[in-house]
């Protein structure tokens, strides 16, 4: 590990900081809701930690009994990505449900407005009967 050049460490640190600044900018501009930014900030912090702490990955790998340290990165990254994708699917389903409810309400309201604007256009059978009684 002593032979690892300092350049790549600098690159990864700078890259992570830029990423974090980008996330922060999205939040400030209101393009990313805080609850979704949380996971990205955590990711950035983890990246920063491992950029600075050079032997960290090897040490954790040894601790967990992982023979080839980079495979630990893939395992962790893929697991995190899958979790986040499931989360997004849940959010998406919720949104779709909300859209359905809203569409129903809007259609009903459109009907109400139209009925108020043109009261004599169409008299439902139910109304006719209630007028008689």
């Amino acid at each position, binding site marked *: 590990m002593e032979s690892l050049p300092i350049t790549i460490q600098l690159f990864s640190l700078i890259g992570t900081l830029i990423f974090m600044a980008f996330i922060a900018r999205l939040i400030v501009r209101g393009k990313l809701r805080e609850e979704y930014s949380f996971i990205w900030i955590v990711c950035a912090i983890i990246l920063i930690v491992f950029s600075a702490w050079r032997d960290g990955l090897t040490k954790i790998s040894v601790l967990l009994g992982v023979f080839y340290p980079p495979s630990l990165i893939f395992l962790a990254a893929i697991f995190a990505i899958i979790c986040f994708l499931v989360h997004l699917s849940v959010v998406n389903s919720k949104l779709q449900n909300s859209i359905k409810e809203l*569409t*129903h309400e*809007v*259609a*009903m309201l*459109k*009907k109400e407005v139209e009925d108020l604007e043109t009261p004599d256009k169409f008299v439902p*059978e*139910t109304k006719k009967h209630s007028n008689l009684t």
Partner: protein
Amino acid sequence: MKSLRVLVVVPCYNEQSSVAAVVNDIHWVKTRFGLTLDTLVVNDCSTDNTMAVVRTLDCLHLDLPVNLGIGGCMQAGYKYAYRKGYDVAVQVDGDGQHPAEGLIKLLKPIFEDQADVVIGSRFLERQGFQSSFVRRIGIRYFRWLNQLLIHKTVHDSTSGFRAFNRKTIEIVNAYYPDEYPEPEAIVQFGLHNLRLLEVPVLMEERQGGTSSITFIQSIYYLFKVTMGTLFVYIRLRKI
């Protein structure tokens, strides 16, 4: 019999060529049998002139601002029926597959309180349009699935020609399946212990528009409906 108020819900997606005939047929049945009946056309965000045609017709209409598919479209109609206090809701497709003469057959068991849900079946008396071979295999599969889950035999589980009483309207007002609702809804009704009844009706080949299911989508259809049915079963079994 005439005191029950009926709402006929006609879901429409790009049915400009057939919707007028459907509404007029319903009107004809209504005057002939003296029913207290309103027709509600639900336009599922059609891209053709369906809405313009519907406006000229003697019927109520809902215009969905977003395309929801048949399930969401029908639920809008059922919600309307629920809120306006209708006693019976009937689905009649806007493509002319369901001839209005069948309406009386569908309504009779509900008026006589023999059933909560009446399904018009094209297979009880093998007459009229019998659907394609592949589709019949699918329908047979759903029949088997329904027997397995709710121990009830529905011969034509994909039929959309259905009548609901007030009790059922209250249930579908709260939840109605989304994409391909018909087979899934049967399991839903079975688990709510509703009385299902099938009556023989004639069906015709669609007069206009295209089916909501093309051949390529049929595999997805089978998968989606099986999943939906199983999840409805798991969700409602506890009730």
